[in-house]
């Protein structure tokens, strides 16, 4: 009887230590996964800003703007509801001081597309182009979206860029 009690006690100790080991491994896997994700997020900030600023430059040059220079340091967007966009200070031939370009995702009848706008200050915004607009469908999309989606963002951009401040950690994903 005493021996049986000892056996059951040692078995329950073994089960508990096994459970602890299993939970420990699970926690370790969680920590490793979160670390990998954090590492990617931190290292990808530059890639995100560089890639989108290059895209802004390409779109502006394609639409006739000359000597375009886009600052790779992004501006802070003042809106928690605005996702998937980035704003940069831009210079081109004949531009005024403190002009900004913003690239953001616009939902259209043809699906979501990336669009580039120019903010001249004093709540003046011009739509430049979609990032991809060679095909007929894309041209039709631009025509169809003019009254609604494109104009919506033309009115919205001054509200989300009112006090744009250069910030090395800006740009929302």
């Amino acid at each position, binding site marked *: 009887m005493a021996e049986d009690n000892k056996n059951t006690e040692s078995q329950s100790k073994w089960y508990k230590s096994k*459970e602890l080991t*299993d*939970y420990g*491994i*699970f926690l370790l*896997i969680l920590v490793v*996964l*979160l670390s*990998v*994700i954090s590492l*990617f*997020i931190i290292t*990808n900030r530059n*890639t*995100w800003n*560089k*890639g*989108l600023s*290059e*895209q802004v430059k*390409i779109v502006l040059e394609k639409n006739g703007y000359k000597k375009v220079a886009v600052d790779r340091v992004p501006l802070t967007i003042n809106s928690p509801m605005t*996702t*998937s*966009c*980035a704003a940069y200070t831009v210079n081109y031939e004949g531009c005024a001081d403190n002009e900004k370009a913003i*690239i*953001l*995702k616009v939902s259209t*009848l*043809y*699906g*979501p*597309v*990336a669009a580039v706008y120019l903010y001249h200050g004093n709540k003046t915004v011009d739509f430049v182009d979609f*990032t*991809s607009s*060679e*095909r*007929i*469908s*894309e*041209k*039709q*999309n631009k025509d169809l979206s003019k009254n609604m989606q494109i104009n919506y963002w033309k009115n919205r951009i001054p509200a989300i860029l009112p006090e744009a401040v250069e910030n090395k950690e800006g740009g929302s*994903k």
Partner: protein
Amino acid sequence: MKKNEMYSYIAASLAILIPVQGRFAYGLILIIALNLFLIFGILVRKLLVKIQLQDFQSVITAVFLVSAAILYKQILIFYSPVNALVLGFSIYMTAAATYLTSFLYGNTERTLKDDIIFNMKKSRNYSILALVFFLFRDIFGYGTITFPVYSGLKSIVLIKSKSNFSFGTFWATIPGALFLFAMLIALFALINNKFNILAETEESSGENKPVEEKASEEKKNDQ
């Protein structure tokens, strides 16, 4: 295919296939994501069985799938920031679709290898269908086949159109995608129905064989 599975595939398709632009490049990105999330979800499910946390399986699997989606989006940002901007939330919808279509919230007694093979076979058929769906929209809606690159999309132009209006552009729109999807479901339902009728006919013909044939079969079996 069972009805439950059919409904979950319809829901998954509405989340992945319809709200995205009809470019083959985006289809490629999302279908690769779907299959990677599937393998990841199966591995997580096996891990939870091993450490006896099956009670929390549905929640933990969902959390891990979202983590996988975040990681995939970061990898996509590294590969192509513009495409990551355009796809945005669709990657998280793909994770949700994986959870639905693979029944990752349920239990299975298959081994890990058998589970992966079984689910990948199902996913293969759906992936091919989805890629064909995107390819159709890209070719007939835009006249191109596109592939994802760092600067956005690499297009191979197949149809050069000189006019300013083209009827094919309907397939590039969201309503066009819905219409195409509805046609595919109708076609699939028709084919599935025919196969079911054939199967039922074969079963019933097996039961109603004449007595002489049954006797001759029995003699052959005895020999």
